[in-house]
């Protein structure tokens, strides 16, 4: 009887010690997602600025909370905004929780990205929006050139002679 009790106790001790050691050695791979209720549910990586001088734009976001996101993009018109993309569910992938989409052939004008967020219970949260403006490359270059102060040759020569 005593032998049985001692053997059972020994087995329990060995199992307990193994599980403690195993738990101590376990290092989970750090996911880039930090579940932090104080942070925004998504971080918009691109577009960075508000002005895009290209006919295409890269939209890149990282999902930072355990939420479901869908993206819609509107072109802001005078009367009514026109939906030009989406709504498309943001595919977050498995590990890094990044989503990318390139929108092509955009005409000049103002655009608005709307990220609709839902928590895991299916409750809607405040959407996140970001606007950007697409400008025509040629027009933008000409405007920049016009902003450069005009100088004439006489002024340049005067400067050179003065410096001498």
């Amino acid at each position, binding site marked *: 009887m005593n032998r049985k009790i001692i053997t059972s106790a020994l087995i329990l001790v060995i199992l307990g010690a193994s599980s403690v050691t195993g738990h101590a050695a376990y290092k989970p*791979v*750090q*996911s*880039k997602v930090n579940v932090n209720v104080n942070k925004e549910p998504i*971080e918009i*990586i*691109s577009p*960075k600025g508000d002005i*895009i*001088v*290209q006919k*295409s734009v*890269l939209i*890149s976001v*990282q999902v930072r909370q355990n939420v479901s996101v869908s993206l819609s993009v509107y072109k802001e018109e005078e009367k009514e905004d026109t939906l030009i993309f989406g709504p498309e569910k943001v595919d977050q*992938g*498995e*590990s*890094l929780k*990044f989503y*990318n989409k*390139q929108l092509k052939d955009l005409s000049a004008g103002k655009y608005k990205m709307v990220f609709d967020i839902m928590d895991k219970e299916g409750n809607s949260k405040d959407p996140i929006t970001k606007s950007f403006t697409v400008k025509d*490359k040629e027009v933008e270059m000409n405007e920049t050139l016009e902003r450069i102060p005009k100088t004439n040759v006489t002024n340049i020569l005067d400067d050179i002679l003065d410096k001498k």
Partner: protein
Amino acid sequence: MKNFNREKFKTILLIMLFTLSIALNQQLWEKISLDKITPSVKDTEMIKMDNDTNNISNILSPQSFIINFGGGLHTILHSDSYNIWNEVVEIFRKSYSLENVSIDKIDKETWMDLQKFRSIEVKLGYNMQTGLLSKIIQQKKLGKYEKIEGFDKILISLMDESSIYVADEKSNHYYVINGASKVKNFEKLIQNIEHGNYEVYYALADIYGIENNNLMPIEGNEDIHNIEVVKEIDPLSEGQVEAFARTFFGENLDFVRKIRETNGSVIYMYGYGQKALKIDHKGRLQYVEKIDEGKASKNIKIDEATEMAISFVLEHGNMEGINGYLKAIKPFEEENQKGYIFSFGYGLNNLPVYCNYNGKIIDTPIEVKVLGEQVISYTRFIKREKVAIKLLENQEQNYILSSLQIIDMNFPMIQKDYAKTNEEVSQESITDKVLESVQSIEIGYYDDPIRLPDNELSLIWVIKIDKIVYYFDAATGKLLWRSSL
């Protein structure tokens, strides 16, 4: 009535033949990649060079071209379908003897700033010595180019019409060549590419929000697919094998011993093993020569050795139709003599080809060892694309995962590998550090005769992160192989 029926029959027959010819033409045009036959730059001047120099220049041509459109948008071309290399060579040729050309050093930041604007960056797989450049542009002296030892990148910026930039990235040396010919052709060239169908690349910084300006394609290319290939050398074809053997041993093979092995391999041996050639059952060619002290002891310059290696490759197999290019030059020593190993890669359907060799994945299936003035070994294992016309069948589209999906699926494994060699990195910052250490992302074809049917090349992603190169199956995302840099 009889005449009327005959006429009707002829009309129907004519219509059928006409329809058939349209259908066959349509299949033929679909099979042949359009950018191989359509001139993309209509005003490009064709440069006339003699055949030898032209062949050497083609093999020394860059392995990739980065087109920077400005505004963070880029693309990378893995073949020279827009004739960019010839345009670059022409700039060097025209500006070589100009009196007002000057060469100055610049810093890396200037180079990186120029990449943000419309420009073309030409990437060589090896360091081109200026002696070799003078050979390509047919100049005897180095002139002002003596200031530059060698370079592996060339940058043509539209911000500057009269300068080009070269860099030896490994040694961190960057130069500007002032007074070079105008680059007007490149403006039109970039526009042509921009208006075509190109694969979009963005900097990793724009995708992941980390500090890494290396480029990444964001979508899988819908136009690429697995391809059918044939062995370059069929060991069972006596005629083909003997034709190759004659390039090594001369027209008369009477004094050459021939051994046919049971597995289908063929061995030719000259004398008592002075020269030996083996073509194995897979079509791999291996040639060796016994070291000739007189030839091996000669000191020759690297550009002379390069020319010798390229000439040898062209004489024994050529590079027609496979977009072959020099990929690496490494010094080596054997029996106290110094030499160079020249490694060549090749591409099919505008993508580089990787192959499984002795259990490893390599991208240089052609290798020449030059010791002094002697070629002492030559290996070659090439597949050629099978051109077949399938009547009224659509091209089979392969679904491939994007590089972003590949990295996402395999990130825990990649991060683990990174942590092993970077123990000092904290858990909080390790993800960013891994993404910052992504050096290159490329798609290519994979030739694995062990796993796949012999006649098919599948698609793989080749991703270099930190000190490891990963090879992933593009369809499944599964890791095929990894090797240390």
